């Protein structure tokens, strides 16, 4: 598991390097106005393409540890005769959006049929609002009935016309018990002098502010200037006091295992993937955050083929395997939270220890403690600028 994590870390960070290279690309992309290449077709031809181009985040699908193949994709190919060109090229929402927004704004295809974006960042909603996402062909997705109830009417896509959840995750606190007593609250994390310089915050505004607002007794799903300022000031103070050492994506995980960090704001699946007995994850006692990564068909993608694939992953037995893996066949699962009813039953047959893991199949009690972040605040340019200035300047 450790070598996977190192690989994940490298890939995530490779994106930072890639970012340096993409600047001119973005500029060039914004430069010309170009001509419309493919207009939005409304009627969908129900014919499978030979290849499905799927862009996803790193380590976010079932993988055979030996062959590095993705069994669920192989089965899909066998059943439908569609080859899946599966590319792990999404490292964070902003830079991926930066990469595809140029062609999309000029009406050009981005050569992808499915992309995955997170609901606690602004870009998912923006893709739909700008008309850069194709409508799903729901006639090809009867399994949509297996979508969990809480995910059926999100604000960015109230009737799930454009998007379907891939996985959800919780944001909470992880700590290494070799270096610290249990860290169970945000107050402890941000203000315990024993943890000075030994903790990190997430660089995603929605995640970090949700935790701090809950600790302040504010409601993260209805952000006001007052609650924003209170949370912002509290995090800024922790930065100025050098309590917070860095703002990270999921690269905090190896540092936590190495001992450079004692505790960190953290995503549940990362910790489930590490499988290190000294590292514990919990929903802070004031509450945690819940987010969901959603599949979208970018404009110009093959709607029918993408919809058939979405239907396939919403089959409980398929999602169960993707989620929990299968130790007998040396398959590692995703270890985040699946949005499909019945996935747990399927997972129980394959890998009971994962199926009973509270981080992967959380109980109703755990889920009652996690909150969504206000989608309006995600688009508030003033908040975003203030936040970026804090974490990058």
């Amino acid at each position, binding site marked *: 598991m450790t070598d996977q994590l190192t690989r994940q870390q490298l890939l995530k960070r*490779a994106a930072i390097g890639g970012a340096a290279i993409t*600047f*001119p690309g973005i500029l060039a992309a914004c430069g010309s106005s170009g001509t419309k290449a493919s207009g939005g077709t409304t009627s969908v031809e129900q014919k499978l393409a030979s290849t499905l181009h799927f862009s996803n985040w790193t380590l976010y699908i079932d993988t055979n540890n030996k062959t590095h193949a993705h069994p669920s994709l192989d089965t899909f190919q066998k059943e439908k005769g569609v080859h899946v060109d599966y590319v792990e090229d999404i490292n964070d929402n902003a830079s991926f959006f930066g990469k595809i927004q140029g062609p999309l704004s000029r009406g050009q295809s981005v050569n992808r049929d499915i992309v995955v974006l997170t609901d606690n960042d602004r870009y998912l909603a*923006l893709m739909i609002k700008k008309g850069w996402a194709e409508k799903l062909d729901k006639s090809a997705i009867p399994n949509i009935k297996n979508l969990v109830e809480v995910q059926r009417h999100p604000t960015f896509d109230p009737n799930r016309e454009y998007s379907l959840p891939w996985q959800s995750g919780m944001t909470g606190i992880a700590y290494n018990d070799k270096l610290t007593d249990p860290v169970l609250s945000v107050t402890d994390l941000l203000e315990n002098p024993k943890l000075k310089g030994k903790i990190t915050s997430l660089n995603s505004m929605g995640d970090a502010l949700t935790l701090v607002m809950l600790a302040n007794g504010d409601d993260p799903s209805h952000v006001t200037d007052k609650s924003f300022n209170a949370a912002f000031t509290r995090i800024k103070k922790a930065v100025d006091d050098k309590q917070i050492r860095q703002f990270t994506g999921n690269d905090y995980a190896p540092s936590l295992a190495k001992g450079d960090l004692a505790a960190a704001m953290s995503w549940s699946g990362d910790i489930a993937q590490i499988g290190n007995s000294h590292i514990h994850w919990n929903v802070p006692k004031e509450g945690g955050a819940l987010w969901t990564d959603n599949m979208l068909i970018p404009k110009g993608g093959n709607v029918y083929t993408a919809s058939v694939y979405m239907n396939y992953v919403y089959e409980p037995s398929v999602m169960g395997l993707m989620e929990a893996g299968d130790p007998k066949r040396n398959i590692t699962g995703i270890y985040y939270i699946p949005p499909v009813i019945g996935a747990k039953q399927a997972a129980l047959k394959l890998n009971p220890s994962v199926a009973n893991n509270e981080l992967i199949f959380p109980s109703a009690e755990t889920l009652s403690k996690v909150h969504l972040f206000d989608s309006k605040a995600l688009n508030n340019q003033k908040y975003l600028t203030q936040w970026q200035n804090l974490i990058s*300047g």
Partner: protein
Amino acid sequence: MLLAPGLGFLAVFFVVPLGFLGYQSLQSGNIDFGYAFTWAFGNYKTAVTDYRSEFVRSIEYAGIATVLALLLSYPVAYWIAFRGGRWKNLLLLMIVAPFFVTYLIRTLAWETILSDNGLVVRTLQHLHLVSPGGHLLATSTAVVAGITYNFLPFMALPLYVSLEQIDQRLIEAAQDLYASNWKAFLRVTVPLSLPGVVAGTLLTFIPAAGDFINAQLLGAPQNHMIGNVIQSKFLELTDYPAAAAMSFILMGAILVGVILYARAVGTEQLSGSAV
């Protein structure tokens, strides 16, 4: 005529993007509603007033790293040029070899080297140079060390080239004229190696000032450089005009610095005609 492909390349891949960057830096708007050209000189003013400390920090870190790289590289380049003998090529290869590994991986390696429980930090704690429980990662020391390391060959190679070209007989002549070894070094070798020093410092300083990977991976938020701000404006905030304005200011500041530097050391050093 032979220049045409080169000039064409420059025009297409340098002048045009640069012009567009300038055009963009005077736009206003946002990703939701689009951008429009409005002669928004305010972008420049905001960049300077809001991010002054990041600009200053970038120049400072890049400056310190350049001086450190010079102090580290000079003896090495000198030794290889004058004492390397038949091992010269191998020794040069040894300088360059680590740089076959990508930039990012090398910086990540530094993260491991400087890790809180690593040998370096423990030794320094033992010597009371780092307080017990203190750390090097997420400090300016780590950022400057990372930059110095990452740009070392850009300093060492030009130095080597200019030192290697020095006619040994000039040094012998100085010694014949009763100059001590040290004096011969100061009066003959150093001046003759100046083109290498100038080239090396420029090649190190210019990219170092715009770097953001080292600050991101090895620094704390307090150590972030202007490159980090530009990166976040471009990719996180999609505030392209502000990012473009900052890039221009950085470019301008470096250009002015280079001109002043060239004036101070003499332009012939810059073009290398002294050799």
